[in-house]
């Protein structure tokens, strides 16, 4: 389910032509590859991105800068 939602989201997402961070996209994918067990994590992580994609709300700044 989370896989399908995400395929739809990224299918329409424009490519960011910025400096390539080698890991961010790959780290995100790892949530999707976590399968059913990862649905909760995926929702928390991607919720605002989905909302932002649908045109509601605003992406919050990441507060925790540690790690």
């Amino acid at each position, binding site marked *: 389910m989370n*896989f399908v939602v*995400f*395929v739809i989201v*990224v*299918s329409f*997402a*424009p*490519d*960011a*032509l*910025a*400096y*390539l*961070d*080698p*890991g*961010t*996209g*790959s*780290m*995100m*994918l*790892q*949530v*999707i*590859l*976590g*399968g059913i*067990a*990862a649905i*909760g*994590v995926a929702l*928390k*992580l991607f919720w605002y991105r989905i909302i932002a994609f649908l045109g509601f709300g605003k992406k919050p700044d*990441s507060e*925790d*800068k*540690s*790690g």
Partner: protein
Amino acid sequence: MGADAAQLDTGSFRDRDGRIYLHAEGVFRGLSESALAAFRAVSQARFYQAYTDQGALVATREVPAEAVPLPTETREAWAGFLEHRRIPVVSYPYEWTFSMLKAAALLQLELTEAALREGYTLKDATPYNVQFDGGRPVFIDIASFEPLEEGAPWTGYRQFCEMFLFPLMLQAYKGLDFQPFMRSRMDGVGLQTAARLFGFRDRFRKGVLSHVWLQSKLDRRYGGTGDNLRSELKSAGFNRELILVNLRKLRKLVGRLRWTGEESEWGDYTQFHNYSNQDHQRKETFVEHCVRQGQARRVWDIGCNTGQFSRLAARYCEQVLATDIDHLAVERLYLDPQRPANILPLVQNVADPSPSWGWRLQERRDLPQRAQPDMVLCLALIHHVVITANVPLAEFIGWLAGVTDQLLIEYVSRDDDKVQTLLRNKQDTYWDYSREHLEQQLQRHFRIRDTLELRDGRRRLYWCQRAVETRVGG
């Protein structure tokens, strides 16, 4: 410390927490304080002991700094030292066959999974951390194990894709040899390159949609956003179970990848060579005789095909390096369940061999820097080197003389149908391809100890010993 001092390995610089030093007596690894603590901890883990006992992790022990043959100031730069079992011949993924890379990938996944279960992880996922010893993959980079930070993703995932998964999928799904990709880019097949290589229809193949297409999309979309994703993941509840799910799926995916190989020119050599049974028998007896009498410890079989003569040589020496240009032939040798453990099969074109490259052109080294033979078998190969690859015969023999003390070389005459096939559509400018010229060149560097005539004189074997006065190097 004089000439006996260990040499710094030129390819182990990436990880700042350790460095490899090579010495005739052993392989040593200097470790930082944190890396030493990590080693002491992980070496007590059950999985570490189990894989070491199986031989899948290189045998390693901590040694006192005084025992390491290094200058004092170098010794003092590290908190401690490990000694590893020496791998007879270091090889690189662009010299492996499909099944060798696959075996290395499965070992990498298995170790990562086993480590995770006990609270450790592997900080990277590169096939350069795997070597082949005794015919099987062995993980050598012990310093790659580190304690798992709960909530952190698998750092090596992207690297695993680029260095193992994409090359394997290119071979299995597209029939593209992965070695040229691995040899041209130190970091393997890049994500965006893979995304372009796999077309729309390939997305229906197992693993392509998620690991290639989706990952490349996410990478392009979010790669430059500057999000602190590590901490976001942690607070969203990411945990090791999710990595384990991914690892298990990857193991299944990699385990199912198959490369059947199309018709190869040489893959069926044993059915297609042009020897009569009697001549074949005589050739085998002669080769066996030379290897035995020559008392070579390390033999190279260049142009080994599926390794018929490598197997013979393996009975009488410690190590055989069996190389051939043909991926499928070498793959068959690797997959043969009867293959002796002291044969290392590698894909290698003698006229376009593995170069020294990477940082300062020494990060990965050419083959002669990694292995020195006492004897070279060069059977039914010379016509390919001189006529197909256009290497002058004198240069080829000169190169062999620089590599080995003993040479067993087969001359394939112009009357032989294999040579006639090669010349059929080529202008014959090969004035140097003659028996007389070969003998003349052999005698420049070697003393001919014995010869054998086969196929009514259309083929001839020469067993040569390098003449002392032309000795180059050591």
